[in-house]
């Protein structure tokens, strides 16, 4: 459990930012108290500066080690949160998905993140009952399976396009069966034509639909989801390309979008449902939890996935701290060795009559300075790492991830500083236990 829970409960009357600032302070408190007690009454810093300067390259290396370990740790933790936020944002437009019974997660990946998979279809009658249910404001078929140049082609309705992108950044909505609206990240221009390939990824058959050509007529706004790399076409066209009925009776064959005619409806893997009022979604989900259909909230499935990963997150934080502490321990061992090089100076101080606590404060301040500079530089490295990993993840998944460091990471770094400056007391004690005369004569 979170050991900071009771603290947060005690200060929950404060504004959020103030709470976080208080927690930061509390986490830094051990370091501040120890520092205050160790240094109180003395001015060790000119000596510390001299010692830092004397072995500047070694010190820089120590600082670099601490900075990189702290930076990568907090960068990864920030990344995990960024990924959760990114996946949640990508799922935002998908209020309720109705599909044939099966795996919700498979359907989530297929419909929301456009990861290809073979799923059973919903029939025209089923679609009809969804579309005509009370309170349904949008029931858009989502028919995937074709692609062009690795861009998935999804058949749906003009209403769906408007739902994803209330305004188009370029061009207009499709009016004919051969029109296409592209996602913001698709490398095609308005007016460009292309032939769809059957299948997605490695399984594509390029010539299956060779006789058919789509024309790009519009471009959607960026959504920060894989839909930015999708090509949305009328679902009627997808059916026609596959030699099926186009969803409408022959006398209305030119129609685009709903209502569809159940007798001429070849089936759709999924239907995006949006209710007139938010609360009505719950009733609709219950209503379509039947033998022929499953209904789920992508947001809720995602939340339970994230919940599963909550433990992973905790483990990750602990591992990050352990790694950082290990690296710092290594650095402190290095310091103990370095102290042998300073032994003569420390012996001099003691021979001159400097109080033990002063010599202690010099050694501790020296170590604490390295730790503090390393940790602060680590925050910088963390920002950089988070930005770089975000770019890579965004490029790889098309899910816009904007990870950046925030309070949890600052808290982690504060806890790290407190823990390690306490560890830094050890080299200071070791330095005091050295024999004065032996070191003086060395």
């Amino acid at each position, binding site marked *: 459990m979170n050991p900071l829970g009771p603290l947060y409960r005690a200060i929950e009357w404060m504004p959020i930012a103030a709470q976080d600032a208080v927690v930061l302070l509390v986490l830094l408190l051990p370091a501040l108290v120890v520092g205050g007690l160790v240094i109180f009454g*003395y001015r060790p810093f000119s000596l510390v500066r001299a*010692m830092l*300067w004397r072995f500047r390259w070694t010190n820089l290396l120590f600082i670099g080690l601490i900075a990189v370990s702290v930076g990568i740790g907090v960068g990864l933790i920030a990344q995990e949160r960024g990924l959760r936020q990114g996946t949640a944002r990508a799922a935002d437009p998908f209020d309720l998905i109705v599909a044939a019974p099966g795996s919700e997660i498979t359907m989530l990946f297929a419909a929301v993140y456009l990861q290809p998979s073979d799923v059973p279809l919903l029939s025209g009658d089923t679609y009809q009952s969804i579309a005509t249910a009370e309170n349904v404001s949008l029931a858009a078929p989502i028919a995937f399976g074709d692609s062009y140049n690795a861009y998935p082609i999804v058949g749906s309705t003009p209403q769906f396009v408007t739902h994803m992108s209330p305004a188009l950044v370029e061009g207009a909505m499709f009016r004919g069966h051969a029109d296409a609206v592209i996602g913001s990240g698709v490398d095609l221009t308005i007016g460009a034509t292309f032939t769809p390939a059957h299948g997605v990824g490695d399984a594509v058959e390029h010539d299956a639909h060779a006789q058919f050509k789509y024309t790009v007529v519009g471009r959607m706004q960026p959504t920060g989801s894989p839909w930015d790399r999708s090509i949305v076409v009328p679902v009627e066209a997808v059916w026609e390309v596959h030699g099926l009925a186009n969803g409408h009776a022959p006398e209305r064959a030119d129609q685009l979008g709903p209502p569809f005619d159940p007798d001429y409806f070849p089936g759709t893997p999924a239907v995006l449902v949006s209710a007139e009022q938010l609360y009505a979604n719950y009733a609709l989900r219950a209503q379509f939890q039947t033998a022929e259909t499953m209904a789920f909230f992508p947001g809720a499935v995602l939340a339970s996935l994230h919940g599963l990963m909550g433990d992973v997150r905790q483990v990750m934080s602990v591992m990050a701290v352990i790694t950082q502490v290990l690296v710092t321990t290594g650095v402190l061992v290095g310091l103990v060795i370095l102290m042998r090089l300073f032994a003569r100076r420390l012996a001099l101080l003691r021979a*001159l*009559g400097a109080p033990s606590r002063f010599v202690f404060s010099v050694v501790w301040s020296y170590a604490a300075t390295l730790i503090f500079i390393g940790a602060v530089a680590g925050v910088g490295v963390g920002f950089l790492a988070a930005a770089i990993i975000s770019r890579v993840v965004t490029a790889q998944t098309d899910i816009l991830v904007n990870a950046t460091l925030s309070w949890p990471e600052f808290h982690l770094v504060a806890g790290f500083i407190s823990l390690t400056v306490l560890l830094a007391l050890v080299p200071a004690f070791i330095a005091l236990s050295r024999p004065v005369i032996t070191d003086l004569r060395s």
Partner: protein
Amino acid sequence: MTLGLTINALAVTAASGRMLLDVPKLHLAPGSCLGVRGPSGAGKSTFLFSLAGLIENASGAVTWGETNLLQMPAGARAAFRRRSVGMVFQDFLLFEELSASANAALSGAYSDPAHQKAIESKAEEVLTRLGISHGARTVDSFSGGERQRVAIARALASDPAVILADEPTASLDRKTADALIDDLLALVRDTGKTLVAVSHDPAVYTRMDRVIEIVDGRIATDEAAR
């Protein structure tokens, strides 16, 4: 303030059991200057360190004024050195990255603020008196003679009653050595400090009030200087 020294049955034995120092009795009047000579390895530095309470396994009594150093815990001995002893070491032992002024005023870093001011001004005063006019420069660029002056200024900065100097003129040329020892003696005598100076250099110990010779850890001769 000025302190005299009384030694009673001072003995230092190495871990091996070897006798390093054996001084049954010695008395030194407050404000006097004692030269210590003797062959290398005789125990002169050990003697000096004993007077500062720096030798852990010394037995007997080393009493400065009323204070018997050997009966006090390490912390109290350090406090005594801080207050009453200025030390000059055989090879300067300066912080190379600090300025001459900062080196000379080193003890200010661990004294109370009121004292710190006094130490800083005294350090400047002594540096000036010893002819170091470039106190702001870091000492890594200083010559041997200049370093030794900074080390002497450091010993005098806290205005101690006792100065313990180990080979203060070692590795200096004749002229520099003479000038330095004259300056040191003038500074010490001006304020009635008690000085114990170890040296191989006759020019040093002939300027003292009294000279002892240590051979194999024992006082072999003890005489007033000419």
